């Protein structure tokens, strides 16, 4: 895709001024990534489509907040997408009282070799640093970030007590931070 981060930043700036053409262009340039994000977390196409619309409405409304946000434009967009998808996931669970049974349809928690390669090249150190963790700890961090799993979900998935999972996660995050600071 020829669209650069600078292009996306430019689109967001124009959206903040109410430019619908820029909004349309941003949608075309980024909707595949954001939809993939929703689908990974929600695992339901219809719900993901609805959340995708909510995401772009948020982008339209809050584009003026981007400048002071301190992250790259794609990170900003994916964060909105991820948070919106997770919020929806939790709401669905709360109303449907499904409880913590997210595991059945989950894809493998690890990346494919290709994804890992992309992640390594694009993302700098985090993949490397995740690799330094115990595989199940790294899997828990990935599950939280990529699948939007809660502590309870993760505890169930990894068959450990909730408090153990909390400790795992916190230690893992601390290790990640130290590793990435090197």
């Amino acid at each position, binding site marked *: 895709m*020829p669209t*650069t981060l*600078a*292009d996306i930043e430019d689109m967001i*700036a*124009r959206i903040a*001024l*109410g*430019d*619908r*053409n*820029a*909004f*349309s262009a941003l*949608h075309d340039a980024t*909707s*595949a990534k954001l*939809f*993939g*994000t929703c*689908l990974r977390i929600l695992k339901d196409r219809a719900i993901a*489509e609805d959340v*995708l*619309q909510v995401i*772009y*409405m948020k982008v339209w409304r809050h584009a003026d907040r981007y400048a002071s946000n*301190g*992250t*790259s434009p*794609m*990170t900003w967009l*994916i*964060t909105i997408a*991820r*948070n919106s998808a*997770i*919020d929806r996931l939790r709401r669905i669970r709360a109303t449907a009282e499904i409880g913590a049974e997210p595991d059945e349809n989950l894809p493998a928690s690890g*990346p494919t070799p290709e*994804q890992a390669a*992309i*992640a390594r090249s*694009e*993302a700098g*150190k*985090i*993949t490397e640093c995740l690799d330094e963790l115990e595989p199940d700890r790294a899997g828990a961090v*990935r599950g*939280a*970030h*990529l699948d939007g799993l809660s502590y309870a979900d993760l505890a169930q998935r990894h068959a450990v007590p*909730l*408090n153990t999972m*909390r*400790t795992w*996660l*916190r*230690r893992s*995050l*601390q290790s990640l*931070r130290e590793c990435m600071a090197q």
Partner: protein
Amino acid sequence: MTDPPLSPDLPDDRQLAAEYVLRLLPPDQHATFEARLEAEPALRAQVAEWTTRLAGMNAEFPDIAPRTAVKSALRTRMFGTEARRRRPSLLQRLGLWQGLSFASLALAGVMAWQLAQPPAPTTPAPLYVSEITAEDQSLWLLAVYDSGTAELRLTRTDGSAPAGRVLELWGIKGDNAPVSLGVLPDAGASSVVLPDPLRGSVTDLVLAITDVPLGGAPGGNPTGSVLAVGHGDRTVTRHTTKKGGPAAHPFECLIKRRRPRTPAAAPRAPCDPARH
């Protein structure tokens, strides 16, 4: 369940920020943390740090294109249905003008110009001629106003609306809000009788064209947020933005107005944000 003691070696706020970014905090703590964010820049910096730190994993989110219908649904949801109102009655094609070539139009323009010179006693009410062009010349209209009948005749000589959009004509008198003069037909000529407030001296009348969803500007009202300066549908015509080039101005208003009697008149900026 009881919370375990906080990990001794991870400072509390940093840990909270990480858990906040991952959406791991229980709802009440999440809300508390969010409230603190408003007031604490240092905490916001922690959140930004963790967001960036963890963003490397985002590469594992796949690219999956959504159905195109999703985008149309979004547009409808945000900007209204596209077939809400058409106002063809405001602008009807004028048979006489259809099929006129550009050459004959140019001639008509010259004649109109001559008619606009100091009127002889036998001269009918003055005609005024104006061009409406986009800066990038992607749209070009000739407007002739007959002050006797208050009829504005428009002939599009070049350009068209982007797919799925229509061109809406606006009249702006002095510092007043723009008045919609209706949606232009897809091609050729049309005419509209100017409403009272726009009549009289038309030398300070500015004509602007915006591209809007099918059916006209949402709300149909030239005032209010729909037409707030900078909104994309104020765009006069298609932009010719180049990727990587300078940012396109989100709107480009008018354009050129030739005054029959005062050729030195300075062009004005009808869509100057300060005016709205």
